[in-house]
């Protein structure tokens, strides 16, 4: 039988297997959508912390100060309430803190006095405490600047490199496409191969007069195709649900295609090495999150320090995130040019094909 016909037959067989495992495939796709939702949830944390606002003054300067608090981007969600309500919520850990504007605030500011504002902080979590401690002076600065108060000698003048900031969630949902590719394609690739050992059909591969390479190519083509459909669904969710429209759609398709090829083959390699889906699938889940985080998933990897950045180069997700953030947002998140990221991504995809083929070549001998 000719090689293309073998590949086609193997692909059809694998598609039939996947059809019989519809629930498994659905759960894999669900995992992809879950990670999309969950990185969004992660993006919502660490910002807009609830801060009780106890306004005992209600004067014009108190009003201006509240406006200044609200103007600090992503810092607080102000919750006006009474002191006793704030006490109760602070005890239950429902607030990051409570700020009290005293009764004489407006009068004192009018007279030029400096008014100390009491801020009670639930300081158990250092991370949130630091955020609050940085944000309050920013609000005070905005207050002084907007009122044009005399005596302020130094101002901060900001020059942004980009026309606008990209939202954290918008950034995360794009980098999470690479994560999803890893999970979906990796799991399907691993299952496609490990199943042959679990069902003991690998013996038939040894006896068959066909090339294992052709059989593997067919199986991985089918797994990759299903992974592509699943990923397309998540990309659609990103575009329609999150309103993140790619600036370079072809680059999105190219980048994701390379990811699918690479991760399907890596999954196949893992499946052939471990020979059990029971081990391969949890390993992919266990590996994927740490590797994802150390790939510039939250911010450009080099900002995390040279050591972390150098380690990140070992992860294919680093290049994938570089390509996808450029393709969706037009952002350059790696010091390397995007074309280099693209080139390495395709080279890794080719290398992973060889790795998967090598893992299968052991079939003849074991």
């Amino acid at each position, binding site marked *: 039988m000719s090689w293309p016909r073998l590949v086609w037959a193997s692909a059809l067989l694998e598609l039939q297997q996947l059809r019989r495992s519809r629930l498994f495939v659905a759960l894999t796709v669900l995992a992809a959508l879950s990670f999309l939702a969950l990185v969004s949830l992660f993006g919502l944390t660490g910002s807009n912390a609830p801060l009780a606002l106890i306004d005992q003054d209600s004067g014009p300067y108190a009003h201006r100060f509240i406006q200044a608090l609200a103007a600090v981007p992503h810092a607080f969600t102000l919750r006006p309430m009474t002191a006793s309500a704030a006490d109760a919520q602070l005890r239950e850990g429902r607030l990051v803190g409570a700020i009290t504007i005293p009764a004489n605030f407006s009068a004192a500011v009018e007279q030029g006095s400096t008014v100390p504002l009491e801020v009670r902080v639930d300081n158990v979590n250092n991370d949130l405490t630091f955020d609050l401690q940085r944000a309050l002076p920013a609000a*005070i600065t905005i207050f002084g600047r907007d009122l044009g108060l005399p005596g302020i000698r130094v101002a901060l003048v900001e020059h942004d490199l980009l026309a606008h900031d990209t939202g954290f969630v918008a950034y995360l949902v794009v980098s999470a496409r690479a994560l999803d590719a890893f999970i979906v394609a990796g799991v399907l690739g691993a299952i496609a191969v490990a199943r042959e050992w679990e069902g003991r059909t690998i013996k038939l591969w040894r006896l068959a007069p066909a090339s294992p390479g052709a059989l593997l190519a067919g199986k991985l083509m089918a797994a990759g195709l299903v992974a592509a459909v699943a990923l397309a669904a998540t990309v659609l969710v990103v575009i329609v649900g999150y309103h993140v429209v790619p600036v370079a759609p072809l680059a999105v398709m190219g980048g994701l295609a390379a990811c699918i090829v690479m991760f399907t083959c890596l999954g196949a390699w893992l499946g052939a090495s471990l020979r*059990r889906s029971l081990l391969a699938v949890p390993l992919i889940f266990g590996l994927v999150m740490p590797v994802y985080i150390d790939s510039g998933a939250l911010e450009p990897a080099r900002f995390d320090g040279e050591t972390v950045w150098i380690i990140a180069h070992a992860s294919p997700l680093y290049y994938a995130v570089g390509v996808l953030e450029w393709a969706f947002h037009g952002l350059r998140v790696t010091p390397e040019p995007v074309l280099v990221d693209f080139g390495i991504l395709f080279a890794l995809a080719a290398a992973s094909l060889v790795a998967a083929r090598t893992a299968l070549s052991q079939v003849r001998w074991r």
Partner: protein
Amino acid sequence: MIRTVWAVARNDLAIWGRAPGIIAAALLPALGMGILVAVITATIGMQPLALVVEGNGPLAARMAHLLQADAEAYLLSPMRRVEADQALHDQKVAAIVVIPEDFDRQVVVGAARVDLVLNNVVDMDLADDIRRSVTRSVAEFDAPQLGIVGELHGPTAGIVLPNPFRVAIAERDLRRTNVTFPQYQVIPIIILVVISVGLLGTALLTARDFERSTIKLALLAPVRRGWVIAGKLLGGVLLTAALLVPLVLLGAVTRFLPSCRRDFALGSGTLKQLLSVPCGWILPVPSLTHGLAVLALVGAVTATAVGLGLLLGTAVRGTSLVVMVGLNAAVYLFFLGGGFATVPFLPAWLQTASRLVPTSYAIAGLRQALFYPDLVGFGRDLLVLCASAAGATALGTLALARGWRRA
């Protein structure tokens, strides 16, 4: 009865011992999440900034000192302008802070400025943090009490220095305990380990019994089926405990690592950061009351997970499917339970969703018992978890009893 229950539990533990794959499958995702927290700790935090001081006067030097003194906010590297521009282009730094040549002259006339050239690629996690930190340092020039020392020890102690912004902060910390980000995150990881091992482990063992038809041997045994089920539940609980206890002991031992001591001086920057990663696993030593509360809570979570595992293994049966369902469930239970978030800080609809998962009560209760001096709200958390444990055990038992009839 006790002998029968113990024999079934021991048999399950023996199978676990012979099938390290099942243990690995149950532990790997939780350990991966633990590594994730460690990586996040090493990666998120202080942003690298370049400081360019073009002014030569004493006021420019003072401004530079204020910026450099705020060491907990960013990693500041003094550079020449050309070097800084190149570093910004190469992403070695996220921003450049420039103190201009005429800084001293402009301060005298009240019109000085500090320039911030910012790579504003992402808002919340990066650009906003830098803006706030630099703003605070710059404001300190005119209002020294707006710095962190002033916030904590100035107006709070009744010392208010007049400042041109006319507002100062008197910060009062409400808790005696404060913990770092990784220490705060260890709690959900512990709960995830319990959930993963209890749920996935028990489910995989149950599914294996059905796949290999070994479940029929239990049916043929001349003992009450209820005792067999009790033995299976006990096996799951014991295994979860066996895997959890070493991790908790590790948390107790970590505090003795040299790199976790305050005076640890080896290395700097990233190296120091990496060496201190295990310190995130330091667990506080609770008082006797709080220790008992922790034991009760972990016990209830374990029973919930094992009961759900029994239910999952019986309902799904195929090991591959069990793995996928279990992993999906563990991911949702972890994140919706507040794995990476403080639940009361989330949007209202997410808080409602979070109330429906037992892990949110487990994480909140464990944090309360370990980090807070009182047990406010702990009773409610424990009650919900005990109810979950009872419900999950009943469901698991019923499912297995039904499964046996069809076996």
